[in-house]
């Protein structure tokens, strides 16, 4: 019987290696796998490369991981959020590397990694500072840059509902980067608010099919975005 549920965050986060590329879902606080991020803090892995839309807020979660000096490089689209003080300090001190990627290119690079596309041409950033140093090419008169697939070693995903095969649904804007990150890593670890019996999720409405999921921890009603801001 396939059963991807594990009993603890620690079990879910086993095998993360130093230097791993870690894809972390979420946009703002919504859909961020907070318990798994805390598990990563507990775990102790270092020299991580973090792929996430932002670069941590406040001093908890990803910001805490940054503060502990565990992240070597951040690949993101928007590290300037208000409250992103830890990252900004590290950046000013030259203690962290930043790869800034347009948000759509970031999403597409992650999807490409999951879909067997090794690289692609797209017009976003062509002719701009973020296109500098990249190969360019005209297609139908449109200048495009060559972008490479962005592969993860591990993806941390927050789902709304999961079954034991790893079929997932998400809640509203909690979907964001989670489904594409689930496809792009060697190991995909999920925290889910709810669980369902196999077969209870509508086969037409499963957003992440189980093939992309390795481990699931049930964090009942945990980390609703509303509980964060307080």
């Amino acid at each position, binding site marked *: 019987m396939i059963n991807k549920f594990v009993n603890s965050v620690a079990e879910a986060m086993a095998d993360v290696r130093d230097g791993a590329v870690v894809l972390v879902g979420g*946009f*703002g*606080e*919504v*859909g961020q796998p907070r318990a798994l991020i805390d598990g990563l803090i507990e775990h102790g892995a270092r020299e991580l490369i973090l792929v996430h839309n932002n*670069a941590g807020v406040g001093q908890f979660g990803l910001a805490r991981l940054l503060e502990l000096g565990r992240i070597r490089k951040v690949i993101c*689209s*928007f*590290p*300037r*959020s208000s409250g992103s003080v830890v*990252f*900004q300090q590290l*950046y*000013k001190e030259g203690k962290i590397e*930043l790869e*800034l*990627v*347009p*948000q*759509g*290119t970031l*999403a*597409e690079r*992650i*999807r490409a990694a999951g879909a067997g596309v090794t690289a692609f041409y*797209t*017009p*976003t*950033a*062509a*002719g*701009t*500072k*973020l296109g500098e140093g990249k190969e360019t090419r005209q297609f139908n008169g449109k*200048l495009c840059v060559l972008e490479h697939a962005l592969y993860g070693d591990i993806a941390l995903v927050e789902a709304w509902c999961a079954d034991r095969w790893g079929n997932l649904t*998400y*809640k*509203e*804007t*909690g*979907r*964001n*980067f*989670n*489904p*594409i990150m689930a496809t792009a890593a060697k190991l995909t670890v999920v925290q889910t608010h709810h669980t369902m019996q196999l077969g209870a999720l509508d086969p037409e409405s499963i*957003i992440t099919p189980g093939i992309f999921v390795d481990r699931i921890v049930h964090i009942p009603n945990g980390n*609703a*975005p*509303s509980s964060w801001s307080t």
Partner: protein
Amino acid sequence: MPECVSGDFKPLSISEMAARVATDIPEGWYVNLGIGIPMLVSERLSSQREVVFQCENGILGMGPSPAPDAIDPWLINAAKQHVTLRVGGSFCHHADSFAMIRGGHLDLSVLGAFEVAENGDIANWATLEKDTPLGVGGAMDLATGAKRVWVVMEHTTKDGRPRLVRRCTYPLTALGTVKRIYTNLAVLDVAPQGFVVTEMIPGMTVESLQARTEAKLFSAL
């Protein structure tokens, strides 16, 4: 919002600028509103008029802000503000959302900007400050991918420097994509010859507007 009322004209407030943009959006358009003044546009559109707002974090059909006692913590827009979903709206993941943006499916992207050049170049993501990590978000995708890009911004900076320029001095967001600009003083189209004034606030003259504009203005009035 300080309004620099100078003699014979009264610049639009940001709310009035947003309202002015709103009047030009026909029913049925799919529209993304950038962070800042553009986001005010949705409030100035009657919900009777079906304009479908897209948020890059996976909403097609964003509705107005919720009542304070009806906040759904899972439902935020790209500025991370709480919003609602309109009847007929739907959710999608980030790659599908940016497929809408980058694949040319948006009728309109409304963006704020630091500068717009007479060739349609836009600079809206990075200042020239040192030491601060830059953030680009979805700005380049939105400025590059939509069918039309309109900019809404103050005509000049707070210290009076023109934002409508011959060539952008700030780092570019996208090249040659802006089609129209709504400022607190005028509405201008970006045409092959450069900026064409199509509308001015009461009391404004082309000469006075030119004095506040680095690039050469053409008038369609």
